[in-house]
């Protein structure tokens, strides 16, 4: 029998066995699916969160507030100096008047508050858009910031980086957690598949014995079980991807615009979906291989003879 003929035969046998013991097969498929869904949810949420954070990062600014006493020439000198650096993408000098105007436009109902103050309480500031690449280079940037803080013209520096970095750390922890949990569940799923395949082999022990007796090779005896494990894993992967997509649609529809929807608005990339399904298949195959690794298939007769060697 050629390899492809054999593969066709294995697939047919595996399919028949899946149908015949569909209840335990379903159990195997579902355990694989649950582990992949959990891993997928983490992947989905962290991927969206990462996307959001990237967006914020690219817009993030450092605002340098100047003291009221700072002279115009000092302000201009500082702006120039900042423009020279390679981490400042764009540098905008916001005069006290501009700040005042912006405030009135942003909060019209509060503009009276400013009027009642008499003189303009808003300081002159320099807004610096950051080049994120350079921004990652912390020591150099820290040094530059320390220098700025020491400058007598500077009153304070408002820096988004700290909390963005914290958010990034959260994303990272989320991803790690998802990976670890997914991996643990996947190992559980492998054990389940392994037991299910062992059980199936037990159900088929008479037939296996007959096949051995008439001269079937191990390849022929094990092939259908390997294909069965693979099928269960792939099915589990497909179930997981479908469930994830359903969840994604549900979030889009029900919670559109809500902050939560940010976490599921972008679906997984095709390559990630394929990876999930492939991982399911691999888990199924590994489960089948481990379940048949030992002398679990029994021998031709009632007694195990070869095992004693």
């Amino acid at each position, binding site marked *: 029998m050629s390899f492809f003929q054999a593969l066709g*035969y294995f697939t047919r046998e595996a399919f028949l066995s899946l149908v015949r013991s569909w209840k335990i097969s379903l159990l195997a498929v579902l355990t694989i699916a649950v582990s992949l869904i959990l891993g997928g949810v983490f992947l989905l949420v962290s991927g969206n969160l990462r996307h959001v954070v990237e967006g914020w990062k690219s817009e993030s600014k450092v605002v340098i507030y100047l003291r009221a006493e700072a002279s115009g020439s000092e302000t201009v000198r500082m702006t120039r100096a900042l423009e020279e650096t390679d981490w400042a993408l764009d540098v905008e000098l916001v005069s006290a008047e501009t700040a005042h105007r912006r405030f009135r436009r942003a909060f019209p109902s509060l503009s009276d508050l400013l009027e009642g103050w008499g003189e303009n309480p808003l300081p002159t500031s320099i807004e610096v858009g950051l080049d994120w690449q350079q921004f990652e280079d912390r020591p150099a940037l820290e040094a530059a910031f320390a220098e700025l803080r020491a400058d007598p013209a500077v009153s304070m520096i408002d820096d988004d980086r700290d909390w963005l970095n914290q958010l990034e750390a959260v994303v990272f922890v989320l991803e790690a957690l998802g990976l670890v949990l997914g991996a643990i569940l996947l190992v559980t799923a492998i054990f389940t598949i392994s037991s299910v395949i062992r059980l199936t082999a037990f159900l088929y022990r008479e037939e296996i014995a007959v096949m051995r007796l008439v*001269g*079937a090779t191990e390849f*022929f005896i094990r092939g259908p079980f390997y294909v069965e494990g693979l099928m269960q894993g792939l099915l589990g992967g497909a179930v997981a991807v479908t469930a994830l997509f359903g969840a994604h649609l549900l979030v889009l529809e029900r919670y559109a615009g809500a902050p939560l929807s940010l976490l599921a608005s972008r679906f997984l990339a095709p390559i990630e979906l394929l990876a999930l399904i492939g991982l399911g298949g691999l888990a199924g195959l590994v489960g089948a291989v481990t379940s048949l690794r030992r002398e679990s298939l029994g021998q031709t007769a009632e007694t195990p003879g070869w095992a004693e060697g």
Partner: protein
Amino acid sequence: MIEFFRVTKRYAGGQIGLDGVDLRIDPGQMVFLTGPSGAGKTTFLKLIYCEEMPSSGNILVNGRNVSSLPRSKVPYLRRTIGVVFQSFRLIPRKTVFENVCYLPRILGLSSREQKKLAFETLRQVGLAHRLNAFPLQLSGGEQQRVAIARALINRPEILLADEPTGNLDPELSDEIMRLILDIHLRGTTVIFATHDRDLIQRVGRRVLTLDQGKLIDDYELPSGLAAETEATDGEQK
């Protein structure tokens, strides 16, 4: 040809299955293997088709030393040996055709070739018309015929029968015996294990007697029952 050279089989638990057996069976011979329960008959057969490996000694089957046969080669040896048991060992959820065609299917024969082969082989055992029946729809004697057809499907040189009539009443036993004689007459080497002394007396031929793993007797009885090809002709249902 089958040759045993000082073959001993000791099981893991220390039980002696076979103890220093030396013998030779020529191609095409018909041999009875007898002795009380526990004498080592099953062990003897298992050693030939490599279900068990000897603890010491050598066994040649058709010129091949099977006592040192690598495990991966065992299936190829088994394709040249047919085996039948007292308990038939048919798969109830498969049809007669499927039960008989395990090996042809593994060998990659087309379903037409399989059908043809199954039909011819089942005709030889008188069951060509039950191709699509399930084993449990058949009588005990018919089930054993199906098992024999399964053993014969690849035209083996050797047929091993481990008490094949043990589950059958005397008339059915005789039918199965005639069938196996017929197979022998077509040139197959047959080793027939049984503790039914009457049956052996009626049939005749070479008789090996085992006791506690030792070969204690080896003699020839004159041929009796079922002269030659009458075997299958004489059988009615």
